[in-house]
């Protein structure tokens, strides 16, 4: 990709006239809580707050489980996944007869990740296959923060899969992030420097001593490490010098590995600004020159306190709220950044501190994040325990994952394909941030998704993917009592309280069909449980379906 093109695009987007902020009379109350460990009550409310932020949706079974252990243990378990990583994506697309290099080495239903094929058609099919697969991985996430964090890091590094144009290398990048996602951030950046997709996407493979390409060197600092916060003062000279450090790396198209060509590497000394303490990275020659100089570059960059602050602010915007005021900067960002740096950029300690902090559980920080498309699509599928085809039925599985993936695109999220290298605008674009998810286009489509999944669902190979609210209600404590049913469903699905009037209206109009007495619902429910005939099922299903459809149409449902 031509660097100027994408830079122009990004700058243009950044400078586009800010959307007119709607007139909001609310001036949010501020909080001064910090990162002291939270010692308040550990109830479903706090568990659900934690899970909705750290995972995609809060499944009732997970909520009940974590409510039965302590907050310490819950966060520790979230941070230490034990489930194996997912099996790689398989070839579920049809072998095209068109490509110059026919995709004939692998059979359908077996993985393509180890097969080299540089045909554009094949690679676009593999990229699509990867995105379906990732959707399935999100859907089947284990009870940990792992998948949300991988989602965060993929966004952090901002590669556009369609621009990279190679599903194999995008999958490799995903795996690199997966390996480091709960590991060491410095190591992850180090791996990304010579990641093949990254080399291609930010032109690193074109960066030579005679014709330096500064693309990656700039984003390495501006977007991946020190950022552009008030404490970041790297210079244009630093960009140029870093670019020289990074010269000489190329891509082997026969095995999708990076390799270093010493003759293309700049052997001059690289001198950095006072921001980097006037560091000089000694120019080197030979086969190890590239790696050694990158190590020096990493050490220089990660010596800057601003790196930890920049990344912690990112965590904050993903997991707590997008506005960071002076009190938050002092009480939360600074202390967490210290933890991050003092632990040599290990990711688990800083996030553990964040998720155990009184600030995280501050009631003022609850219910204030606008759900992402993945929270809506993946979260609702998980929260309702939607039955999916057996893993062995890859055709139906990938088909349904594709449907879910498509709904995320419709609502503004294309997995591993952000608008540009800066990533998803909802995490950086001032002043709206998360509010960018909700527009006059995407909000109706969010409702369209929940409506379709509520009424007809989506059918493929005779497998119907659909919300089953009756089955969901069976998992609740007392679904035969319409008040308890509504209260409990709201407890698990919602973060904001609804008024008693609204709940009363929902009960009477939706569950009771206008009847005055609660026992009509109770009788219908018990009749269905005692004798689950189609007729009895329909009586409860028609009502409970309208209740949940209505719940999901409320604005409150968009918050987590």
């Amino acid at each position: 990709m031509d660097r100027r093109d994408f830079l122009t695009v990004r700058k243009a987007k950044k400078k586009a006239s800010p959307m007119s902020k709607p007139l909001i009379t609310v001036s949010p109350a501020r909080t001064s809580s910090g990162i002291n460990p939270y010692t308040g009550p550990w109830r479903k409310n706090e568990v659900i707050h934690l899970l909705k932020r750290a995972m995609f949706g809060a499944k009732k079974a997970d909520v009940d489980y974590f409510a039965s252990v302590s907050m310490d243990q819950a966060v520790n378990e979230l941070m230490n996944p034990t489930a194996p990583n997912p099996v790689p994506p398989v070839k579920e697309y049809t072998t095209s007869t068109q490509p110059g290099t026919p995709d004939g080495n692998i059979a359908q239903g077996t993985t393509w990740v180890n097969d080299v094929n540089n045909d554009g058609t094949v690679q676009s099919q593999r990229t699509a296959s990867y995105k379906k697969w990732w959707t399935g991985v999100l859907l089947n996430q284990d009870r940990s923060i792992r998948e949300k964090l991988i989602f965060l890091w993929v966004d952090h590094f901002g590669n556009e899969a369609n621009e990279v144009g190679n599903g194999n290398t995008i999958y490799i990048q995903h795996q690199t992030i997966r390996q480091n996602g709960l590991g060491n951030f410095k190591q992850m950046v180090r791996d990304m420097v010579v990641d093949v997709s990254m080399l291609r996407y930010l032109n690193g493979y074109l960066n030579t001593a005679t014709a330096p390409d500064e693309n990656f060197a700039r984003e390495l600092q501006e977007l991946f490490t020190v950022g552009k916060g008030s404490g970041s003062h790297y210079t244009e000279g630093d960009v140029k010098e870093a670019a020289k450090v990074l010269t000489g790396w190329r891509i082997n198209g026969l095995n999708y590995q990076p390799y270093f060509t010493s003759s293309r590497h700049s052997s001059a000394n690289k001198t950095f600004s006072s921001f980097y303490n006037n560091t000089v990275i000694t120019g080197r020659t030979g086969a190890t020159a590239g790696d050694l100089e990158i190590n020096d570059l990493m050490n220089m960059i990660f010596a800057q306190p601003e790196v930890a602050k920049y990344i912690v602010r990112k965590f904050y915007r993903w997991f707590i709220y997008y506005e960071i005021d002076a009190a938050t900067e002092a009480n939360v960002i600074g202390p967490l950044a210290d933890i991050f740096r003092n632990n040599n950029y290990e990711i688990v300690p800083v996030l553990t501190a964040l998720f155990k902090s009184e600030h995280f559980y501050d009631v003022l920080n609850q219910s204030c994040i606008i759900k992402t498309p993945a929270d809506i699509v993946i979260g609702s599928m998980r929260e309702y325990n939607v039955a999916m085809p057996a893993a062995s039925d890859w055709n139906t599985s990938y088909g349904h994952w594709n449907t879910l993936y498509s709904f995320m695109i419709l609502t503004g999220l294309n997995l591993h394909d952000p608008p540009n290298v800066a990533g998803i605008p909802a995490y950086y674009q001032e002043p709206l941030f998360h509010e960018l998810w909700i527009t006059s286009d995407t909000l109706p489509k969010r409702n369209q998704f929940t409506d379709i999944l509520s009424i007809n669902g989506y059918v493929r190979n005779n497998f119907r993917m659909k919300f089953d609210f009756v089955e969901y209600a069976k998992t609740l404590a007392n679904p035969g009592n319409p008040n308890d049913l509504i209260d409990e469903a709201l407890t698990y699905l919602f973060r904001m309280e609804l008024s008693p009037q609204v709940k009363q209206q929902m009960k009477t109009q939706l569950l009771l069909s206008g009847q005055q007495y609660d026992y009509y619902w109770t009788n219908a429910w018990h009749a269905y449980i005692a004798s689950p005939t189609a007729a009895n099922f329909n009586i409860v299903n028609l009502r409970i379906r309208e209740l949940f459809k209505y719940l999901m149409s409320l604005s409150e449902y968009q918050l987590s």
Partner: protein
Amino acid sequence: MKRREFLGKSAAITLPALISGYAVKALNEDSPLVRALLGGGTDTDHVLVIIQLSGGNDGLNMVIPISTYDLYYGARSNIAIPQNRILTLNGYANTGLHPSMTGLQTMYNEKKLKVIQAVGYPQPNFSHFRATDIWMTASNTDQQVFTGWAGRYLNYEYPNFPTGYPNATTPDPLAIQIGSTASLTTQGPSVNMAMSITSATSFYQLINGTDDPVPQTKAGKELSYVRNVAKQTRQYASAIVDAANRVTNQSPYPTNNSLADQLKIVARLIKGGLKTKVYMVSFGGFDNHSLQTTTTDTTVGTHATLLGRVSEAIKAFQDDLVFLEIEDRVVGMTFSEFGRRIKSNSSVGTDHGAAAPLFVFGKPIDGGVLGDNPTIQPVANVNDNVTMQYDFRSIYSTLLQKWFCVPKETVAGLFPPGINNQLQDLPLIAGDKCNNVIVPNPSGTTLITNYPNPFTNSTEIKFSTDGGHTLLQIMDTAGRLIVNLYEEDVPAATTIIVPFDASHLPNGVYYARLQNGAGQQVRPMLKVR
């Protein structure tokens, strides 16, 4: 040739056929059936207002048998209305109204009220929920149907909805439900065809741009933001606001009467110019197992209060229609999921029953009483029920045919199997209200068509896909899947034609449901012999 010309021309022959037992006349471009098939919606300015009385209304104390008063009194002496208090009807001595319904008495005497006796269906169900579903879906008692009768009608008139709606020819909601969330009555094969305004309060919030308060927190700030976008994108919100704002003056309505509150909004929207065909309002509290009347005076109490509010609300609505000069355009009907038992219980109430009288009202109707007083045994048994005289589906089908000007053949197809050959033409509408039907224009975005339609044995279904997974299913009016006609991963956007052989299937309406990506569209197709 454009599809519309094609249909118009090709249908210009006499089908020597019967549709569900009715002879089909020559179908040409002027035929309402052909126009209906063209997909634009039959363009009358007629409006139907459906009033749901939830809880099971005691019809025998609403429409009271005078000719058999002694039997009536004998069956329910503890709640019976004294004979001298029954409101009489001009020119009809056999039957009278509850004393609290003076408004409806006046309307009857002005020939704006039709009383239909003993409306019900075979093998009545006594569960509120199931009986409500039966009334809303128009199913038989043992049938499971997932769409509403009005929803099927609106889907037939506007098969493309909601794709491409609202649009220039159909800018307004097809149906509006007030005082409740969208009900089964207006549920179509894939989406609910109605816009719902959950309460009178939310209507005025919409009109006035006010909203429920939010807390002064970050969460409150974000909730305000989402609500603000929701308000901007609420489909038809501006059409409703504009229509409401065109009407500033209405005649008086009673206060403390939620039915009147809802009907006042309906009148305002009709006068304001909405092209909406169907309005549904609801009014509850009729489940009077005990203390239906006071123990000292049977003409007052819970039920009397409810009936008084119904009567006052409808009368005020009718007066407003006169004031607003839209009386010719509006017909209303009441229904309740069931009536109550003939014999009262010892708690001064009545238990769940069967058939009950139903009102159709408005200037266009053919006033009077249809049917006889219910038969009451000299010694009423606790299980005695009012025997059905008229099937409620015949009320619906008559209104569809005589008020919404849908051809009889098509109307039959909109009812589930086993019912569509039993529908009766009832004298509900005075004169011919369908002699001035305007040819509609197709509206919305058509994703599926079929030709020929109507068809005898087979038809070809043509549909557009955006590419990707594409599924075409055939369903019957009961919502049962007949066949998956097509399922492929289509590489690119294209148009596909598949034949549908229905030679082994009974006559009636079949639905072709297209599922492609986020899009769904359901096309009604009429099979005739």
